[in-house]
Structures are given as structure tokens and as C-alpha cells.
């Protein structure tokens, strides 16, 4: 009994990065992408979500292991292993992907507030300024629990999905029996599903966070539980979003053009309040992710360049750290304020960009996982390496197919 309590205490102390990174995948971009997947394609492409979730488990586990074994974040480790030029390639890919995802978070804030009749020209600048002040002044903890509570609204998709009386047989077939997407739209949304589930920022975040926690190698088995829990939560919520949209929106041929369309999938549960419930969740999840993402990006850039920087530093001492933070916030919010910017398209397209930029990052992770001088006894086994290669091949196939179908 005592030994069991001891193991539980270790697990509780280790839990964190995996669960948080997994939960953060259910951000506005994730919700919208999964909603479009279900509304436009019914249950047919649920297998893409299943494979993305498996890839999420594989690479988040690898990221946490790399962080614990080397004590370094992804960008710094790539520079150490492969030199400054390839390190620069990794950091540029990560910054571009994170900029796109930050943009998506602000699109979520704009869409959420528009459900309450608040203009994006008021909500987005205020949110950007508010989030920056809270994080930089160290007051983030005051609102974090509120934001998590608001974003937990999306757990209601599980109930909404069940209440919508879905065709469970079709859902099961769609999950385990792959049907190849043939149209450009189907491949695009499949690619976006991969890009939002296995987001580049999540990979770098989980590695940095695991390194930060200074876990011991013998605690890795507990870290694995954390990673699997987080990834499964992402997969389960994503599954029910697709199921809810496939059973409520898809039969009527409703496409998602704005947040109000996506909110209709919650009508079986919330009735007329669906729009407001969806809006509240969107705002909470977006603010939460918009708080962590620019900070995570600034850490990654500092880590690549060299001087460790953090919120304790003054801007004059860490210009690159605060500069990166500022650029990501200003550009991410600014692009949403371009008149007529289509929010749903931005939410989905940035996730396709994520999938494209994942490829170099995953290739670096694969090579590092096989590098015995860096990973020591935790070097990837043959079976794990094969799993990584299959996942990378799957993502590359989606991206290449999309490129071929999109080329003029």
C-alpha cells in the first residue's frame, strides 16, 4: 500500500507537460479543424484523427524523453547535434509555425467575441495587450484557472456527441477502416488535422517543459503515462467533436463558414445557448494558448541563440527574448485585424502550415532519437524508429498529395 502511494506521489509530481500540451491541442484551431472534418466529410476521415493521435503519443513521448535525457530544448539540441545552420532551419520552421498558430488563437478570440456581438477590432487588441501584461508581469496565475475552466467547455462535446444519436457503426468504420481522401478539400482537412493534433509548438513545449522539470531518467515511465493521458484526451475530445458535427451538420450539408456554424453542433445539448457556450469555450481556450505560445516561442529562440533568458530578465538584458515575444503577439494579432480576414480559413490554413513545418522538425527528432552519444541508453529501439518513420511518411504523403493537387 505504501509502495503504491509512493508511486502515485511520483506520478503526481511528474504529471504536467504531456497533459498540458495535449489539452492545449484542443484550442480554437483544433476545435475548428475537427468541426470542419466532421461537417464536410462525416465519419469517413476519423481514421486520420486516430493516426494523428498515435503520432502524437509517439512524438510527445520522444520529446519528453529527449528533454529529460539531454536537459535541453529542441532548437538548442538540434544546433548542438547538427550545427548552427540546421539549428537555424529548425528555429525558423518553429517560429513560422508558432506565428501561424498564434494567429489562429487570435482568430479564435475574434470569432468567440463575435458570437457575443463584440467587434474583433476591440477584442483582439485588448486580448493581445491583456495576455502580454499578465504573462510578462508574472500575474498569469490569477486568470489561468478561469481560462482552463472556460476551455473545459469543450468537454461538453462528449455529451453533445452522444445526445446527437450518431451512427456508431459508421463512426467505428470511419475510425478503423481508412478510406483514401481523393478531393483536394479532403486532403487539405486531413493535413490540417495532423497539423493541429501534432502541432510543432507542442513538440518544443513538451521537450522544454520536461527539461525544465529536471526529471530523472527513472521517472520516464511515469512521464509516459502523462504523455499518453494528454494525447488520449486530445484524441477523445477530437473524436466527439467530429462525431457531433458529423451527426448534426453533415446530414444537412452545412459547411462551416463561421463560428456560429460550428456552434450548431452543440445544439443537441445546449439548444439556443449553443452559440454562447461555444463562444465562451473558444475565448477561454484561445486566451490560454495565446498566453503560453509566444512565451514558448521566445524560449525556443533564446535556447537556439544561446543565452538562457526568462521572465526574470529585464527587456534590456534579454532583447531577443522579449523581441520574439512581442513580434509573435503583434504579428499574430495584427493579421487578424486585416479587414475581411476570413477567420475559419485562417484557423484551418495555419494548421496545414503546421503539418508542412512539422516535417523538418520530426526529421531532426528522429535523427536525435537514433544518436547514441546524445541519448545514451535511451536511444530509440528499432521498433520505435520504425514507428517514427511510418508517422513521418504518413505526414509527408499528406503534404505531398496536397502539394500535387494544389499545384496549378
Amino acid at each position, binding site marked *: 500500500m505504501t509502495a503504491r502511494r509512493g508511486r502515485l506521489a511520483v506520478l503526481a*509530481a511528474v504529471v504536467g507537460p504531456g497533459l498540458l500540451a495535449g489539452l492545449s491541442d484542443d484550442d480554437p484551431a483544433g476545435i475548428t479543424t475537427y468541426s470542419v472534418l466532421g461537417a464536410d466529410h462525416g465519419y469517413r476521415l476519423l481514421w486520420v484523427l486516430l493516426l494523428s493521435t498515435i503520432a502524437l503519443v509517439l512524438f510527445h513521448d520522444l520529446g519528453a524523453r529527449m528533454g529529460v535525457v539531454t536537459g535541453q530544448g529542441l532548437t538548442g539540441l538540434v544546433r548542438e547535434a547538427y550545427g548552427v545552420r540546421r539549428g537555424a532551419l529548425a528555429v525558423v520552421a518553429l517560429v513560422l509555425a508558432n506565428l501561424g498558430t498564434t494567429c489562429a488563437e487570435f482568430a479564435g478570440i475574434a470569432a468567440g467575441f463575435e458570437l457575443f456581438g463584440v467587434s474583433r477590432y476591440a477584442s483582439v487588441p485588448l486580448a493581445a495587450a491583456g495576455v502580454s501584461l499578465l504573462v510578462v508581469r508574472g500575474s*498569469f496565475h490569477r486568470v489561468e484557472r478561469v481560462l482552463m475552466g472556460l476551455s473545459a467547455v469543450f468537454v461538453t462535446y462528449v455529451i453533445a456527441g452522444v445526445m446527437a444519436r450518431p451512427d456508431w457503426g459508421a463512426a467505428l468504420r470511419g475510425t478503423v477502416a481508412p478510406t483514401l481522401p481523393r478531393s483536394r478539400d479532403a486532403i487539405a482537412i486531413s493535413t490540417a488535422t495532423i497539423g493541429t493534433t501534432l502541432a510543432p509548438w507542442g513538440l518544443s513545449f513538451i521537450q522544454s517543459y520536461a527539461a525544465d522539470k*529536471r526529471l530523472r531518467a527513472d521517472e520516464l515511465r511515469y512521464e509516459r503515462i502523462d504523455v499518453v493521458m494528454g494525447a488520449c484526451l486530445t484524441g477523445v475530445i477530437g473524436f466527439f467533436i467530429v462525431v457531433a458535427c458529423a451527426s448534426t451538420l453533415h446530414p444537412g450539408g452545412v459547411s462551416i463558414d463561421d463560428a456560429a456554424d460550428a456552434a450548431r453542433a452543440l445544439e443537441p445539448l445546449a439548444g439556443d445557448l449553443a452559440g454562447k457556450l461555444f463562444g465562451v469555450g473558444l475565448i477561454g481556450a484561445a486566451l490560454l494558448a495565446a498566453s503560453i505560445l509566444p512565451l514558448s516561442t521566445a*524560449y525556443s529562440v533564446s535556447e537556439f541563440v544561446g543565452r538562457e533568458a526568462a521572465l526574470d530578465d529585464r527587456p534590456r538584458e534579454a532583447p531577443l527574448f522579449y523581441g520574439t515575444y512581442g513580434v509573435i503577439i503583434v504579428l499574430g494579432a495584427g493579421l487578424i485585424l486585416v479587414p475581411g480576414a476570413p477567420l475559419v480559413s485562417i484557423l484551418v490554413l495555419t494548421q496545414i502550415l503546421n503539418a508542412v513545418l512539422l516535417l523538418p522538425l520530426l526529421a531532426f527528432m528522429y535523427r536525435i532519437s537514433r544518436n547514441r552519444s546524445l541519448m545514451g541508453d535511451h536511444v530509440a529501439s528499432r521498433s520505435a524508429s520504425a514507428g517514427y518513420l511510418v508517422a513521418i511518411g504518413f505526414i509527408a504523403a499528406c503534404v505531398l498529395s496536397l502539394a500535387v493537387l494544389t499545384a496549378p
Partner: protein
Amino acid sequence: MLVLSDLLGSEVRAVEGAVVGQLIDLTIELGDDHPAIRRLAVGHRRQITAMVDWHAVLSFEHEAVQLTLSSDEVGRPGAVGELGPRELRLARDVLDTQIFDIDGKRLARVAEVLLTRSEDEIRVVAVEVGAAGVWRRLGLRGLAGRTPEQVVDWADLHLTSARGHALQLATPGTGVHRLDGAALAAVVAHLSTAKAAAVLDAVASDVAASALSASHPGVAGRLLKAVSSTTASSLVGRMPVDDATSVLRGLSTEAVDALLVGLHSDRAATLRRLLAHPADTAGGLMNTEVQTAPVGESVGAIRARVAAEVPGLAGLATVFVVDDEGHPVGIFEPSDLLAGREQPRSVPTLPASLPVQQVIDLFALQDHLALPVVDTEGVLIGAVAVDDVLEELLAERLPGQGRYARMHRRGQSLRSRLGIRLARPR
């Protein structure tokens, strides 16, 4: 001044002028503050085909390195060889790896290795860290010119690459071997747990124990779990009891029992007594190793005794005067002893159960270095000194806070925000 990245890739020529390869790396032998280049790694692409001794170098320029050896001698079997026991490759083990900047107390990544030429040798003098060197190597010279250069002396860094870290720990007189406890606390807080544990194993036990005392209790607890049980018990045995208690409070009951088994029984009993007091009380803050004097002992006799026992004296050299039943009747502070004050000062006593906030308030209101802590019978059982109060107030600023934890300056972590109960340090 030479920079390593400019030299790498230079052609290496044999004495007859034939190109035998490119310069892939340079090696040094750890030991000196600014070690000399010992060998050249020569080869093609990234494959080393020969390790050439520095004495075989005729001239060493950016464009080409001229050797005194023939092509046959450079290419003879066995020319590659193993690295010596203290030999380090600069490009592989230093360039682009993380170092700990001992003066700046933070991790940095090496953008350039700086070398200097003196007579017939080349020595490593420093490394450049920060953005300027990175921009220069990426070809962004304009940007590099506008970015301040940051340099760390070779003698003031600890390498974190696998070989660099291991060699520095094995080489007396380098990096961490010269640090005191407080400086070492900053180093171990920044390293991965395995490397930090190796540092504690490599330095003198007193310095390692002092480093743990100066660390955040959470960091110290993590490291105690990572070193061998014998080392852990030895370190706890050498730490001041109040610091050791703070660290033990963050560990599980099983871990504490395992550590205390290896200690002298008196020491273990003292720690168990202290652990019985809740962390947020005067009893939880106190140190039991205090200096006492019976009522009536002359100031001269006390002064002589204190002077003889100062090392290891807790409570900032305050002497507590107690009556026959052990009740405190006053204190002598060091200035009182120096001035020859005849009667002890009257001071408030702190019940062991007094909440820590009230202890802090008392220290803020009264000008004393230490105050006595008493049990329910009013008997002296220890003392809280002003440094204990400062540590309590500044606990979150001790080395060891992760970057993401800094989003929550009050020590609240993202994990606790998820409602998950954690085993946390006090």
C-alpha cells in the same frame, strides 16, 4: 585572435605540398586555465582519417595548415587513435554546446571558440556566447556588427557536453572544483539531474553539502534522490539541521527513513524531532544547534567559549542564557560579548507552534539576530535566526526555479492549476 569556425575546413598539406585532408577538429588537454592545442583532427567531410600532433605543424593559417609530415606518415595505419584521458575535441565537445557561465550564473551556448597565438603554440582563451557569433556564422555580418559580443573566459565555465562535463569533473582545479557552496548551488540548479548529481559526487563533500543548503529545497531533495544513498546520507549529515529539515520535508516518508538510517543516531533523532514540527511554524524554522550559557556565567567565560566554538555555531553566534530548568532568561549577541555587557538582553520567546508569519513580524519589529524557541513547558528547544527568516521569505528566489514556473511567481505551477495535488517542497 583566431576563431575556431574560421579554421575548420582549412586545407591540411603534407610536407611535400599534397593536400591530405581538411581540418575537422582541434583537441586540447584540460588542466591549464587556458589550455594549448594538442592535436589536429584531419579528414574528409566529417570522417577523421588522422590525428596529427601539434609538434608536426609547420604553419597554421586560415587558408591552409602546413605539416612537417609526409603524406605517408599522415596516412599510416593507427594514425587516428583514441583521445587521451583528458583530451577534448573543441568542435565536437564545445562549439554549439551549452556551457554554464560561472560568473554570469546562467546557461549559454557556445557560438565561437576564441584562440590566441603565442610563440609556437595556440591556446584557448575564451568562448563567445550569445547572438553576435550566431549571426556571423550564418553570414549575417551586418546584424552581427550591431549585436554586442559576449565572451566567457575559459577558466570561468563548466562544459555540459557529455565528454566535456565528465572530463572537467575528473580534472582537479577546473571549473566547478574551484567554487564555494553558493556558486555551486547555481550550477547544479541549471544542470540536468544526472549531471548535477555527478557534480555533487565529484566535489568535496563539505562544498556539496553547502551547495545543497544554498539551493531551493525542492532542488536539493531532487538531487539527494539522484546521488547514491551513502552520498545522500553523508550530505544530509553535513548540512545545517534547519536546511536539512527543509529538504527532508519535501521527500516521501520512505525516502526520509532511508536517508536517516545512514546518519549518526543523535543526528537522525534531531532531524526527526524537527520534522515533527509543522513547516509553517517557529518549530519548523528553528535550528536546534544553539549555544547556551547557565545564569550567572561570567561574560568573559562565555566569550572565551564562543570564540573557541564559532565554527559550526548556528543562531549567528547568539548565546542563550537559561536557568536551571532550561527556560531562556535572555540572550547575549556577539556585540554584547565584545562590549562586555554584564546582563543578558530580555527578548520575546517563540512558542514552537507560533505561525511563521508572526515570527516574521516579530523579527521585523525587533532588532535581534536570533530569538529562542520554547516548548509548551517554556523550555528552550532551539532558535530562529534572521537568516532563517530571510530564507523563508526568499524561498522562491533560491536557485532552481524552472522557466515555465516563472510564469507563476508565487510558486504556483501549471500542474497545480490543473487541480493535481503534488508532492511539493515547503
